[in-house]
């Protein structure tokens, strides 16, 4: 081989220098990053009997913070610590590293609000095989990948509820549209399907569903979609957004638009975020449920399964004092339903804080 190619190859291999300064700088920075970040991690170091990892869809969503509140409330009396970790984005597979970490840490239970009904199954099944209790909270995966599921409301009737809710703010008649989350979100898609089935079966004949658009749970996209709906359908009378990001975006769009009050906004949202819009008249009413209740049920269920070796299956009755009505029955596919939706309007909006 000639010298030129050797020289070029050496050139290609980069500088042949040792970097002495690199050693302390890099290790310092890595340790500093990790140490400072550890302080941010929401992990308790107390030695309790039950260690649970809860993985919400993503971070920064006050709705999931309320579920965590429920977990902690119940966990105090149950000798349980709950760690909350989540990915940066609500992507289908972004939760997998955290599930794997929990398996490694040999936690007692994993509770997860899944971003996808299928993609997490292989990992969740491994967790189950490792003896970890797997619960889905607020949303569900394929039934084979978890021991039990806690849904906030009866998903199979939530679709009907959304349609009825729209009817109530419209007085029974008018064109309306759905502003949903991501096009792949399993919970929203289940509700949309339920709504369509109800309408096709003759429910609320005075209403006409003209479109379903996806805001991707992103504020900008949701606002743009809401605006486009207003432009595209001059007879639109209501937007129903069954997602907290979507309803806030739509409400914001309408509260600064000449159509405020003429086009109704309703759907599912959190009281704190929507309070503004109830007070300024953009939104007559919207609904949600108490997310914290799910956390309480989940914590109790984990103890039942772990300590009392209860096997979750349909028809099983459980009693948890102080948790909602007290008795809970598992439904099909080991699902517990936390309760009926709660409507928020001008009369009661100030009573809630989440």
């Amino acid at each position, binding site marked *: 081989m000639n*010298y030129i*190619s*050797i*020289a*070029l*190859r*050496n*050139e*290609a*291999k*980069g*500088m*042949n*220098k*040792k*970097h002495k*300064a*690199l*050693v302390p700088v*890099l*290790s310092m*920075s*890595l*340790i500093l*990053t*990790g140490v400072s*970040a*550890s302080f*941010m*991690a929401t*992990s308790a170091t107390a030695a309790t009997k039950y260690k649970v990892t809860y993985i919400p869809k*993503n*971070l920064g969503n006050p709705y999931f913070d309320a579920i965590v509140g429920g977990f902690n409330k119940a966990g105090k009396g149950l000798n349980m610590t709950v760690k909350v*970790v*989540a*990915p*940066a*984005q609500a*992507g*289908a*597979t*972004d939760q*997998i*590293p*955290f599930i*794997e*970490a929990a*398996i*490694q*840490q040999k936690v007692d239970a994993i509770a997860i609000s899944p971003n*996808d009904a*299928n*993609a997490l*199954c*292989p990992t969740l099944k491994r967790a189950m095989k490792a003896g970890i209790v797997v619960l889905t909270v607020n949303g569900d995966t394929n039934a084979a990948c978890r021991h039990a599921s806690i849904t906030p409301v009866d998903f199979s009737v939530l679709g009907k509820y959304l349609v009825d809710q729209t009817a109530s703010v419209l007085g029974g008649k008018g064109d309306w549209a759905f502003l949903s989350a*991501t*096009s*792949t979100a399993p919970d929203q*898609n289940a509700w949309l399907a339920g709504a369509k089935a109800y309408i096709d079966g003759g429910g609320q004949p005075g209403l006409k569903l003209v479109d379903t658009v*996806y805001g991707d749970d992103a504020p900008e996209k949701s606002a743009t979609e809401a605006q486009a709906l207003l432009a595209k359908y001059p007879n639109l009378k209501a937007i129903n957004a069954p997602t907290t990001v979507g309803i806030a975006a739509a409400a914001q769009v309408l509260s600064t638009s000449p159509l405020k009050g003429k086009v109704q906004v309703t759907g599912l949202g959190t009281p704190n975020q929507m309070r503004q819009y109830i007070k300024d008249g953009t939104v007559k009413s919207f609904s949600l449920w108490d997310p914290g209740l799910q956390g309480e049920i989940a914590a109790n269920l984990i103890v039942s399964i772990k300590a009392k070796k209860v096997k979750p299956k349909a028809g099983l009755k459980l009693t948890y004092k102080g948790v909602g009505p007290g008795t809970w029955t598992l439904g099909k596919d080991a699902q517990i339903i936390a309760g009926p939706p709660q409507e928020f309007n001008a009369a009661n909006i100030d009573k809630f804080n989440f």
Partner: protein
Amino acid sequence: MMSSMVNSKSRFSIPGYLVGPFLILIVAMIYGSLGSEYFLQPSSIVFNTGRYIEIGLLALALTFVIINGDIDLSVASTLAASAGVLAKLFESGVPIVWCCVASVFTGFILGLLNGLIVIKFGLPSLVVTLATLALYRGLTQVMLGDGVVADYPESFVGFDQRLVIGGSPGLPAPLALFIVASIIFYYILHRSNYGLKNIMSGSNPSSSNFSGISVNNVRLIAFALSGTVAGVCAVMITSRLGSTISNVGLGLELLAITAVVLGGTDIFGGRGAISGTVVALFAIMAVREALVIQDINGQVQDAAIGLLLILTVLVPRIRSYYVEQRNRKKRFNESQTRT
């Protein structure tokens, strides 16, 4: 001058660009194992490599593209579109094997398309692949809409759990694939004619052209290779997840590029090594896993990787700046003593 270059090669030393990634890897592993006794367990290492291997394979192919002087931002979207083709064909009843072949072929075509647009129109690859990032993702969305394709056959799913060498810990199939791929890519880049052409096209395109190297062909091959690898990764990711939706692989391109740059490859081309990319990938994997096991959340993990990326590029430059200052002083002093 040339002899000194050859001589310095004979002294045993880790090439400079590898020191950074190696250090990060070691420190991360120490940090991770300090944080949790489960970190270094063989089983955890085995189970966790799957999703990083996809990034690693993309990074290997991307190394060629970047050394060339180009960049390919669309690798993740190419992966998605290939996965979409796989899913759609499977849905319509085509046997899974042919779906996988189609996926790889789609990746090849899309990568080739990137290269053709860049070369025929003479456009900067940054902008073209920015456009195809959107375009190919759009194709995926059109193909898959808001639906999910699941129900892949049992024999197909779970590639990342298969062990090539059994026992504990065993060698997981993706890791084995990555090792084989790394060796192949190493030979292509550092030991073959094409690799040489690639490096030369990156460091000086015009003189390479005059030397008889068809720079355009070299670039085209690099793009096609990048696309093909993305198609292979699409098969892997589908097997690992057992389902396909339209936002599959979103954001992977940034991680792949990070791995390449962290490994010492010059973003402007002309210089780089497969070994760097490989070590950098393992370093990223170690850092992420170490942070996850400490229950550190997603955003801070990303921030840590970003910080390390900057430091890895910054520190050598600052050091060489000081070295140059010192050399200048030395030369100045020497010239003084001479007179």
